């Protein structure tokens, strides 16, 4: 019996198990929250060591990016991310992971054409959109402030 694409869609949607949303969201909340709490603890420590707010913030970002890259290199980050989902993608450690992972993966194709070219394949859109948004924000700030 022939089947239309609409009928087929109903059939495969019925056969496709959905993602466990509640479980995924809970795990993302817990792991994302843990990363943020840890980051806050590091920030408090930096402030207690006499760093001003701005320097403490920048130092914290550097520390978190370093940890993200280190855990990616040790293949630990993807293992956590498998359960954490958005909890490890949204924090800055996820951004570090998204650049370090292709940089490692494509090193077999050489330093220039492999690592350097491919390292932005995932984070590229984030960088492009982030830079564009910051330019627009800067212009608006310049004009109205």
């Amino acid at each position, binding site marked *: *019996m022939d*089947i239309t*694409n609409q009928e*087929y*869609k109903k*059939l*495969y949607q*019925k*056969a*496709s*198990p*959905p*993602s*466990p949303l509640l479980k*995924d969201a809970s795990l993302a909340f817990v792991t994302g929250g843990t990363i943020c709490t840890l980051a806050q603890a590091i920030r408090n420590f930096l402030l207690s060591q006499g760093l001003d707010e701005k320097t403490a913030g920048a130092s914290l970002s550097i520390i978190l990016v370093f940890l993200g890259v280190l855990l*990616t*290199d040790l*293949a630990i*980050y*993807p293992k*956590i*991310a*498998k359960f*954490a*989902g958005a909890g*490890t*993608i949204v924090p800055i450690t*996820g951004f570090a*992971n*998204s650049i*370090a*992972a*292709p940089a*490692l*993966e*494509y090193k*077999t194709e050489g330093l220039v054409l492999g690592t350097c070219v491919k390292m932005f394949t*995932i984070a590229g859109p984030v960088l492009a959109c982030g830079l564009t948004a910051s330019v627009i924000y800067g212009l608006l700030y310049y004009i109205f402030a």
Partner: protein
Amino acid sequence: MKKTGNTYCFQDPPRVLSYASVVGKKEGEGPLSRDFDYISDDNTFGEQTWEKAESRMMSMALERALSKAHLPLSQLGCILGGDLLNQCIGTTFALRPTNVPFLGLYGACSTMAEGLLVASCLVESGFEQTACAITSSHFCSAERQYRYPLEYGGQRPQTAQWTATASGAVVLQKGGMGVRITHATPGRIADPGVTSQANMGAAMALSAYETIRRFFQDTHTGPSHYDLIVTGDLGKVGHQIVIDLFQRDGIDMRPTYDDCGLLLYDGSQDVHAGGSGCGCSAAVLCSYILKAMEQGIFRKVLFCGTGALLSPTSCNQGQSIPGICHLVCLEADEKWNM
């Protein structure tokens, strides 16, 4: 050879002279572990890149199949093979040193069935006395081509499948003993409009249904005439869709229908909807299925290789995923059942 409808009927059926399967660690921990010829604990297969690892795995499968047949490479008539990597480099680099006539195939994960179909035509027609169908897939080389780098922290949806690290080789011969290839039905491309790369089972299931249905019509048979009907890599989702589609025609596939993607791994191996990749159906055929046929457990088997004919480019450009399914009918001699 004659053609009935869409189906080739081999009058002097080519025989399976030998076969071999080589798999990775995860596949070796699955339910078919005892049936494989070689399980590598190291998914790099001692190589520096994943692509070289895949080629090494394929050449090991070829070496083992030939050695089981006591057939020197120089006497092999022809090799038909392909894989998932761009320009089929897994296969061409594995076969580079062989100096055997080679026909490259691309049927995505249906490559083993496609290779058997073409090899059967070459052997039955008498152009070749022997021909080898071979294919492979490697989780790591496929992931980086189709999805994300291995170390990227992402989550897979429940409908996603796991590309098998596996290779299978089947050597066919004219005459002699062994499992016969009696019929083959080349598939037609079917595109039911599925766009999700994470639901390949849904994209391929329609083509599987259509090829199997055409085969039943051409041969005036049904599921009860076969001991096993097995699709390549539809996984849980596609397997259920095929059952549902036949249900609409009033045909119950459940008693004899299975899927290689469900046979290769067990539920605890975290492969979500099941296995996939060229190596999935090839390794299951070259281990569990052909062994069971030789032991007389199965006498008639329909091996239906399924392939999703997408590329990352076509998906990025918003195209839906076309599927294909090639069918090969395998029969063991009666006397083996004694």
